[in-house]
């Protein structure tokens, strides 16, 4: 069996990247909770990860022509930033609801740590396999 270290971490690598990026987006929302005309943004994590997973499974397409190109790996950098629907629009045009953003931020932090523990599990598994314990 050929072993590919790049793929050893599976989807969790992308997940961690997107989680970190989302934490940045959410902290931007919190930072701008008093900025006039600022529109709260977020990343649709589920959608981004579905795209990433889709790219991984179709990673090796059959080439029937020399000019065909393989689809590249999913670029998590292109994770689309979407605007949040305001629950309660404010007069100054700001759509940040600090409570909602705080909840999302905490949720995202939890999920980041979950992804980290998945990764730790993978690394420990690899270690075990390498040592032959």
């Amino acid at each position: 069996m050929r072993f590919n270290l790049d793929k050893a971490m599976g989807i969790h690598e992308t997940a961690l990247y997107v989680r970190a990026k989302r934490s940045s987006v959410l902290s931007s929302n919190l930072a701008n909770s008093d900025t006039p005309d600022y529109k709260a943004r977020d990343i649709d994590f589920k959608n981004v990860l579905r795209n990433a997973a889709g790219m991984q499974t179709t990673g090796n397409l059959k080439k029937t022509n020399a000019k065909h190109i393989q689809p590249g790996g999913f670029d998590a950098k292109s994770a689309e930033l979407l605007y949040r629907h305001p629950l309660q629009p404010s007069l100054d045009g700001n759509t940040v609801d600090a409570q909602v953003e705080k909840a999302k931020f905490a949720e995202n932090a939890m999920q980041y740590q979950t992804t980290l523990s998945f990764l730790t599990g993978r690394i420990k598994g690899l270690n075990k396999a390498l040592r032959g314990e």
Partner: protein
Amino acid sequence: MSLLSAFDVSGTALSAQSVRLNVTASNLANAETVSSNRETTYRARHPVFATALDMFRDKPESAGVRVKAIVESPAELRMRYEPEHPLSNEDGYIFLPNVNPIEEMANMISASRSYEYNVEAMNTTKQLMLATLRLGQ
């Protein structure tokens, strides 16, 4: 690394909110500063926040905040008839700032709450970064 820029973003918010607190403190401190003419009277100041887009040009997901300007309130100054006051003008009037203490207190509470949750966000980010450094252990 995205988490590092989250740190910077929260940092810009802390600095902007502390400017806001500072301005509020100035307003409250000068709420009763008397003057003898309209021009030299203290006027309530308010910071104007704007998104600092140029700070993270290569990172569209990060948007900090900065204080764009500090504007003086256009509200009418208070005039009081006090001929015995040493600073009264020839008609016997003194001028008082247009600071609204209730408005300032509300502003102060809002600023301190914003400061608090940005510190909290920074703390969480720090914990996440430390956990990432311990990855695999």
